[in-house]
């Protein structure tokens, strides 16, 4: 089972991100469970959503306390809330930011996790560029597809297409693809990792294995 925890603020589409991720996994024939952690809904308040992905039916109903990946849709949360609590030793971190992890004060995290497991992507900027609105969830998922090998970009795009009206979906898909390409290129350059193509099937990342081994 692969568990993802997504952090952000109300109004940024955190819950939708978890849902899209689960639909992407579903489209690849896997079981997935996406659910929010609830507070009374208020724009701007910190929110979390979870997504579990597995090859068999998921029976567990507790919040994700030991995520394999943490996605951060709002970097302003970084030092006010402990976003990485319980993160697996070989876990993945993806932050929506134009700055690099060190600049965000994440040097310690980078050090304790395997090389290349902590990345940033300017999701909001990509969203503004392709969609016209600063909703980072679609590009963040596109980037994630290039990162942990858990879902393919094609599946993410198919999930987006299912969820949004055609024109909006198209633009979000472009943002997702731009983010995917960016991270993919970075991983090749920085870590000399070959990332599978957008539509290539991936094995579900087993706990303890990195995406490099599925290349």
């Amino acid at each position: 089972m692969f568990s993802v925890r997504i952090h952000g603020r109300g109004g940024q589409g955190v819950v939708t991100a978890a849902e899209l991720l689960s639909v992407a996994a579903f489209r690849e024939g896997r079981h997935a469970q996406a659910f929010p952690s609830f507070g009374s809904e208020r724009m701007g308040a910190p929110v979390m959503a979870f997504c579990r992905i597995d090859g068999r039916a998921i029976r567990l109903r507790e919040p994700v306390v030991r995520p394999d990946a943490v996605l951060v849709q709002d970097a302003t949360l970084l030092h006010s809330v402990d976003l990485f609590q319980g993160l697996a030793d070989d876990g993945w971190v993806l932050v929506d930011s134009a700055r690099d992890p060190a600049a965000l004060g994440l040097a310690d995290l980078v050090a304790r996790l395997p090389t290349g497991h902590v990345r940033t992507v300017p999701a909001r900027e990509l969203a503004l560029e392709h969609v016209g609105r600063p909703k980072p969830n679609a590009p963040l998922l596109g980037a994630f597809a290039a990162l942990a090998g858990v879902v393919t970009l094609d599946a993410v795009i198919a999930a987006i297409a299912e969820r949004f009206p055609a024109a909006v979906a198209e633009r979000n898909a472009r943002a997702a693809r731009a983010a995917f390409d960016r991270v993919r290129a970075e991983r090749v350059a920085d870590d000399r990792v070959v990332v599978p193509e957008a539509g290539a099937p991936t094995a579900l990342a087993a706990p303890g294995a990195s995406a490099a081994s599925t290349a």
Partner: protein
Amino acid sequence: MLRQIEGSRAVAEAVARCRPGVVCAYPITPQTHIVEALAELVRTGALAPCEYVNVESEFAALSVAIGASAAGARAYTATASQGLLFMAEAVYNAAGLGLPIVMTIGNRAVGAPINIWNDHSDAMAMKDAGWIQLFADDNQEAADLHVQAFRIAEELSCPVMVNVDGFILTHAVERVDLPEQGDVDAFLPPFDPQQLLDVNEPVSMGAMVGPDAFMEVRYLAHLKQLRALELIPRIAGEFRERFGRAAGGLVRPYRTGGAATLVVALGSVNGTIAEVVDELRDEGVPVGSVSIGAFRPFPLDALAAALADARRVVVIEKNLAPGLGGALASNVRMALRAHPLPVHTVIAGLGGRSITRGSLRRVVLAAERGDLEDVHFLDLDWSAVHREVARWTERRRSGPVAENVLRDLSAARPPMSRVV
């Protein structure tokens, strides 16, 4: 048809396929997505003919359903928590009149203090109103139980409550095989009322019944519940034949063979329990679980049979009878009256407090060791409790309990665990 879909939406789609004639809706967290989805289905014509009535309160919602059902339409509504209590008079009325209404409860805690998260206190508050109460373990079952519910309700002429854990199930997006319309039509024939407001054959419904006949009328309500004990498994069997999967039924044992300790629970926590059972079995601990699918009628015999070979029972309860323990454990003990076993009440998950694998493991092993109290509160912050009690002793006007505890805990805990 396989869909990756939110639980509420799956319930709405399943209900729509049952062809309700009248749907009445009053919003309350966490049921809102169900009634919103149904509004959409009616507006687009996907669910037709159907009258969708936006009402002014939950009391009105069930009252509209009562009128609609008595006048021959298949009636449906949904509520939770405060809403269920607000319509309490109508809940008893519907059962007393014998109207086959189906209602979804998105289980949520009942205040005060106000709380929007999941527990079973709402369902428990209405357990003896005369409704059949079914509980879903996951969203597939949540959808399937509604199809069974209309069958059960109409065969018995008795209303049915389908309990779906609020947020945990209602707001979870997961894989559900939505029943096909053709299969539902074959399984659920058109509504043929046992009693009807008909201008051609006028009857008076709702007369006063005095001491000379009240006991007999009430016994007949009891009889309906006893009949349901036979009907529920039969309908579950028919459902399995038609739809090809198991859903519903009275009790669902899991790895009970050779189990010394059996865990009993209602609803979604059974999924987490199953994971813990597997984990412990791998470690050689003889433990199993029983998920109760129908809380009313309470399956005394079926449960007794399922628990027969155990040495102890741990009941995970998402409700509290203050001063006593839990409603579920009390009923479980009744099932074991012929062969009493130690039954532990574990009060857990009240107001949406997460029930974790780790904590479940701990209580099961404690029970095994003989180390678990009769009534145990899972993951309770005892120091916070003691501090509040100390405040009561210090001064008369110690202030609202909820505010004090919240202030106390926000000072004590870091932000992260507060959100979880």
